[in-house]
């Protein structure tokens, strides 16, 4: 009897809950591995960008979606990761050291930025992180001896034991491989006490405290992990860009990351991936769509930012669970097909709207 129970719990803990999961994720993995053979270089570049954005978004997702802390300054962590990577490589530090140091420095700064989070919540925290991002942008521009300011700096190629990995399929495999590692690490955290504590803080700090969770400590941990992951994505992004300037990491990009999280689906790892697809695909779609618009509209400055903003607002109003939420509904619809009732998804007031910005 006991033994049967234990295998039951094991199933509950496992990442792949059933054969179907194993099959579909296996298929996805094969597709990801074969992509460089199947599609041409341009699309491999796009997929690489997608993997990097998904990683940056995943970092933010852990903070916003799982811990309930809003950051409007996450591009700054990308910037810290990117510049640390470029500066270290410039000084001859090997890639296998520079990459973890870049993530680590971003995490350390994340801890400092997280300090106000111990006192501020909702919109006030959002403003504090925004201020931080503006400061970092300024530092990147003015600290010329290190960052070369607005002159910008060239990012040296990745070389591991004499192999160059900065381009094409090699860099694609590196980025996707790291993304998979980060996803697995996040999933592990979320099925462990630390991840549960983060979610607990999101839903009720007072109850979290009463079950023994040191709220300040876990908020700090969440900030560190989030910033570290986004910083790692930033280091990879440096190589994708090949050339850094302070304008690569603006507030607009921070907002883009937040759009990624909300549109993808707050509080889900899938959401970070779906959101990245959206963020990478939208400019492409806009570029195509521009051909059909009158020129004065198509060339209007800020068109892309405007569309991003509009989509963000529409999602918050109409589909607060994001693309992932919509996907789950569609899947459920087909699995229940003749019996599907609209009430199966009676809209819950989500924490996104009611509690996040209190």
């Amino acid at each position, binding site marked *: 009897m006991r033994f049967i129970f234990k295998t039951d*719990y094991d199933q509950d*803990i496992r990442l792949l809950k059933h054969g179907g999961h194993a099959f579909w994720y296996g298929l996805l993995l094969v597709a990801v591995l074969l992509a460089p053979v199947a599609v041409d270089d341009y699309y491999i570049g796009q997929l690489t960008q997608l993997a990097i954005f998904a990683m940056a978004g995943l970092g933010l997702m852990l903070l916003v979606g799982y811990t309930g802390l809003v950051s409007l300054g996450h591009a700054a962590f990308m910037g810290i990761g990117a510049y640390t990577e470029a500066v270290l490589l410039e000084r001859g530090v090997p890639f296998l050291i520079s990459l973890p140091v870049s993530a680590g420095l971003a995490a350390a700064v994340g801890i400092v930025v997280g300090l106000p989070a111990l006192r501020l919540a909702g919109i006030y925290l959002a403003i504090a992180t925004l201020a931080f991002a503006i400061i970092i942008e300024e530092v990147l521009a003015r600290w010329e001896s290190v960052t070369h300011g607005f002159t910008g700096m060239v990012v040296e190629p990745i070389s591991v034991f004499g192999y160059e990995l900065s381009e094409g399929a090699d860099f694609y495999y590196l980025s996707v491989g790291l993304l998979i590692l980060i996803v697995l*690490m996040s999933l592990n955290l979320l099925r*462990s006490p630390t991840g549960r504590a983060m979610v607990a803080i999101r*839903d009720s700090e007072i109850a979290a405290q*009463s*079950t*023994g*969770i040191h709220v300040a400590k876990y908020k700090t941990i969440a900030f560190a992990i989030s910033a570290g992951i986004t910083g790692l994505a930033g280091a990879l992004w440096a190589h994708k860009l090949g050339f850094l300037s302070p304008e690569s990491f603006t507030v607009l990009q921070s907002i883009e990351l937040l759009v990624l999280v909300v549109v993808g689906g707050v*509080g889900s790892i899938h959401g970070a991936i779906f959101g990245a697809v959206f963020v990478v695909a939208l400019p492409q779609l806009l570029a195509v769509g521009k051909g059909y618009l009158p020129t004065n509209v198509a060339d209007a400055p800020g068109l892309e930012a405007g569309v991003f903003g509009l989509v963000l607002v529409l999602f918050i109003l109409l589909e607060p669970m994001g693309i992932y939420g919509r996907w789950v509904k569609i899947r459920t619809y087909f699995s229940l097909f003749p019996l599907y009732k609209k009430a199966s998804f009676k809209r819950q007031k989500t924490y996104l709207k009611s509690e996040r910005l209190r």
Partner: protein
Amino acid sequence: MTFFRAENLAIQFGGLRAVDGVSFEVREGEVYSIIGPNGAGKTTVFNLISRIYDPSAGRVVFQERDITGVPPHRIAGLGIARTFQNIELFQNSTVLQNLLLGRHEHRRSNLFSEMLFLPHVRRMEVAHREKVEEVIEFLGLQHHRESRVSGLPYGIAKVVELGRALCTEPKLLLLDEPSSGLNPEESEDMAFWIEDIQKDLGITVLMVEHNMSLVAEVSDRVLAMNDGRVLAEGTPQEVQQHEAVIKAYLGG
């Protein structure tokens, strides 16, 4: 040695003396109830014990240890668990996840072993689930194990909150109005559980409750409060018949 003791507790909110020199002792193994009209300061006493507020005077002593200066997140680890008058659950998580959070103080892992989900983390997770399963069985929550809390009826949510407190394996359990919002049948279940918690699990219970028949049914001793002060203490019958208590309830 006393198991639990509140000594001269006091706190003010602005000019209001919400709790004003309250002392009482709880013996190990008993069910001790605090009654009193709305606004008497009962919940505030709980909040002082669980260290949500700092008292302006007095101390709280648990197992001969002064816990008045202990940070709030350490209280669960000392063996004091609680429920809240207006349910405080993790609304967007399942019942199982909520109960697992009750195991937080029993975790034996760190950030890095969790990221890698090392074998001992997995074993620990299985062990937590075994404990949680005992509580699920004890409270009859099997059908709701995988349900999200936000969709549960009030009465069930109340039981889940009790379950989460039990998962911490407390020595002292604080229940703030365990039967409020429950229908008579659910209240009856609650009475049985409180008795089982005392007799079978050996947990000392300190509860705030309005439902006098529940109080009379399960309590060994009762403390009556009004306006932040103690009116009377004794067996349920003694307190119910106490003149000052009757007057306070009649709004005198």
